[in-house]
């Protein structure tokens, strides 16, 4: 039973990671209950149900060796691309963007799963590719294939348009590239070059109204009511929480609907308003712990594939958490990215739980040959 799980092996389960996940899930549902107190549907229960589905998937995944994912990588990747293509043709249009696909009566957001597919396919590529081992390192031009693998889905997501998800997918993939044997010098050249080029383009080539148009085009939802309004209201919500917050269900910015999208992209504002600096630091700590635990799983994985999978998942949680909370607190521009396990949304929750499942799986099998 090389691929099985015995009772003994449950000792090898990454319990701190499990505990951390469960705490975040619980707080997430509790917080969502406050954010959607005035909604006609009990969204917190719906969310909890999706978490249950996710946990079930995690449990099932634990019985299957993650190495099977190598086999599933390509079919998974192309299935994801197909879903994205489906969105482009048959997607549901909401606020000027096509992001949802109707599958068997459910509204699915394929871009959430695309991230996982990209992580798996990149992990497989870096595991199988011999170039790195042969040369001892990767040059920039050796990486054209992984770049192609990244850019195709990112471009499709951009086209929806969904700037946030596209950026975060790209960031996750680039983080994985950073962990491959790319020379530091090359990495620096790559990022510096890319950075300088985009800054130059933004500052010199584009005029103000063009930038506004680009932003509006890329993410119409965020700019529908005048750029900046969301950001300002969100900062008021966060700031007004002060030390201890206004208490569960007592946040006026949240309850009186001054906060935009308070149950999805701006869910952290609700938390920060109602639980203050203390609560926010605790939540940031939990996410930091989750990401560090995931990195720990990566560093201690049995093989390169597991390691890269775990790295990708770490990046997934890190970038989501950081971009989301950064946006909400005004250190980043408003781009629609969900806060993992906190923002309302079935696709996102299930994808996150699958990520956790993969992490636990990699961690569980670190001692096995």
């Amino acid at each position, binding site marked *: 039973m090389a691929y099985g799980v015995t009772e003994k092996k449950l000792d090898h389960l990454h319990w701190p990671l499990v505990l951390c996940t469960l705490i975040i899930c619980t707080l997430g549902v509790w917080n969502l209950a406050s954010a959607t107190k005035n909604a006609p549907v009990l969204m917190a229960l719906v969310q909890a149900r999706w978490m249950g589905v996710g946990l079930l998937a995690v449990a099932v995944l634990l019985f299957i060796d993650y190495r099977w994912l190598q086999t599933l990588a390509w079919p998974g990747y192309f299935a994801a691309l197909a879903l994205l293509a489906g969105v482009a043709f048959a997607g549901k249009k909401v606020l000027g963007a096509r992001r949802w696909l109707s599958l068997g009566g459910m509204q699915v957001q394929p871009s959430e799963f695309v991230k996982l597919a990209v992580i798996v396919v990149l992990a497989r590529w870096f595991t199988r590719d011999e170039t790195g081992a042969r040369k001892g390192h990767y040059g920039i031009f050796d990486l054209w294939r992984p770049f192609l693998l990244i850019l195709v889905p990112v471009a499709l997501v951009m086209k929806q348009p969904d700037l946030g998800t596209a950026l975060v997918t790209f960031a996750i993939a680039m983080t994985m590239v950073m962990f491959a044997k790319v020379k530091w010098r090359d990495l620096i050249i790559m990022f510096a070059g890319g950075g300088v080029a985009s800054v130059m383009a933004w500052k010199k080539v584009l005029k103000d109204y063009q930038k506004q148009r680009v932003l509006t085009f890329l993410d119409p939802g965020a700019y529908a*009511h005048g750029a900046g309004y969301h950001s300002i209201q969100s900062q008021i919500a966060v700031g007004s929480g002060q030390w201890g917050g206004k208490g569960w269900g007592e946040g006026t910015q949240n309850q009186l609907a001054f906060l935009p999208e308070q149950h999805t992209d701006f869910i952290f504002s609700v938390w920060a308003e109602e639980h203050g600096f203390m609560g926010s630091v605790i939540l940031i700590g939990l996410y*930091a712990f989750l990401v560090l635990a995931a990195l720990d799983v990566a560093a201690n994985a049995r093989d390169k594939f597991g390691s890269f999978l775990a790295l990708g998942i770490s990046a997934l949680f*890190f970038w989501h958490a950081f971009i989301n909370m950064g946006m909400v607190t005004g250190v980043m521009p408003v781009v629609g990215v969900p806060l993992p396990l906190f923002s309302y949304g079935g696709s996102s929750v299930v994808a996150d739980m699958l990520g956790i499942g993969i992490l636990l799986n990699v961690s569980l099998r670190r001692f096995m040959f």
Partner: protein
Amino acid sequence: MLVRRDFDDIREIRPRAALGALIVVCAMLVLVVRLYQLQILRGEDYFNQSIANFRKSLFVPADRGLIKDRRGHTLVDNRPSFDVFMTPAFCKGKERDEVLTKLREFLHLTPEDLDRIRADYQKSWLSKDRLERFKPFLVALDIPRDQVDVLEGHKTEMSCVNLIPTPHRAYRGSPSLGHVVGYMSEVTPDEMEQYEEYRRGQTIGRRGIERRWERELRGADGKQNIAVDAKGRELDKDAQEALIPEGERLVPATPGNNLVLTIDERLQKAADAAFPGRAGAVVVMEVKTGYVLAMISRPSFDPNMMSGRISRAQLKELSEDPLKPMLNRVMNENYHPGSTFKVVTSLAGLENSIVTPGSGISCNGGYTMGNHRWRCDKPSGHGLMDLRRALQFSCDVYYYSLGDKVGLDALSDMAHRLGFGQPTGFDLGREIPGIIPDSKSVTPESGSLRAHAINASIGQGEINVTPLQQAVAYAAIANGGTVWKPQIVRRIESPDGKITREFLPEAARTLGVKDTSLATVRGGLVAVVNEPGGTAYRSRLPDLQFAGKTGTAQVMKLGQKQKLDPSAQQYFSRDHAWFASFAPAQDPEIVVVVLNEHGGWGAEAAAPAASKTIEAYFRIKREEAAEDVPAAQAAAPVSSAAVVTQ
């Protein structure tokens, strides 16, 4: 036991994972620092902003003070009505357009109205002050009852629209009181800048009492703080109580003070009914106090119309009316006094010992000075005249001669002593001084000093007075020499009826004229009305002696009025008819001055109105005594007034 398949790669990954962990910790610390900045350093500021978000301040308009006549009869009060306001912050973009479409339909707005509303909306939306868009602006003033019902019915669809119950001014007194009470209209942006307690859409007093006593009448608006959600919808009661501390929920309005005027509305109506002219003025004033009992400037404007929704066409009509309804003729127009001025010439002659009551001047129908002959009304001449008879018959030649002897400066001096040539001090807004020429003011080109004196002696030439000045001067002659500052406000009362300010009679000066001179002039004025041949003999009253002087003032120039059609031109070239009187002849109580613009002969066009007004005064007085109205006693403390002045 650690055995790894691709150990090299893992070895490669570990330091990078450690670096990644460091980056993660740093990034999270950046967030913590940012949160510290937002929640701790600027927390209080943001907390207040979050309160400002849901807190909406509705103003509670103060009830404006009432204006009553001397009996406590209400002349001006407030009637309930609704104004429509809109808060830009609560409807933007598409919703705004929908709301505007609905408002246009429900309120029957004109495209002009809509343009104005859009402009106001844009203005507050684009204001640099972000809070400006949370301030409601006026959409429609004083909407009819049925529109109120329609708006109430569609309240939920238009959360940015508020119906604000605002009491509007109701002018219930005689329409002839227009120039007394004034009217209200919306504050201008300049005024709002000047007085910060006024908000857009509020009204401010214009003209008359409303303007002069704005501060007393206005009171102070209250404030109601309510909690609203992001769409501007008012929250339920429990939420209100949780979010707004009890002490801050309602700051009640302080109602304005009430004004009790010296005006007697019954007399005002009677005087208005008695006045026959298209244009002119009537002033009835107490001789012993200077309190104005009735004050008419005809034509008047309708304060209800001026305070309500008045169209541009109506305003244009008012401003272009050749009869100038917006002009307060009592105090803001110059008139030649004509023969009513002969009392001034008489007093100047007596005081300067130019004439004695018995000395005679012969009238042969004219008076010659140099190569100019001034004619008398009676071409054949009045014969030998003494002062009493000269007044009685209004003999011009007597006064030409007297004026010539007295001289312009002595006339001017006496006129000034009686209150001419300067504002009377009447506290009801701007007042013109009139014109009394003297040797310094006249130019040699306009004629010799003697010619000026001769013209002035009968109230022509450059002499110009206001009806109010006439009343003050005749009152001084009647009361034995007190020149009053005329007053129209008797007292100010707080809303619960306590007197906060009382206006006692105020003398501008005493005449300093011998009692015998005054008695002589009064005798002449009695003869005018009560002796056969007197110019106002036909207006005498059977059971009451009163005294007065007719005047027929020539209107020289037509000036700008030449564009008028012939019938109007004929009207505007007719003489002004004057009658200045006091009653009773013995121990006078009131002075009545009637000016009938372009009315013709004073005896025909002004004296009868004065006579009827005097009659009405005593009839009302008798009725009042019979009714024993307690308020009547409070109205005029005649005896104490006399004490104050002496």
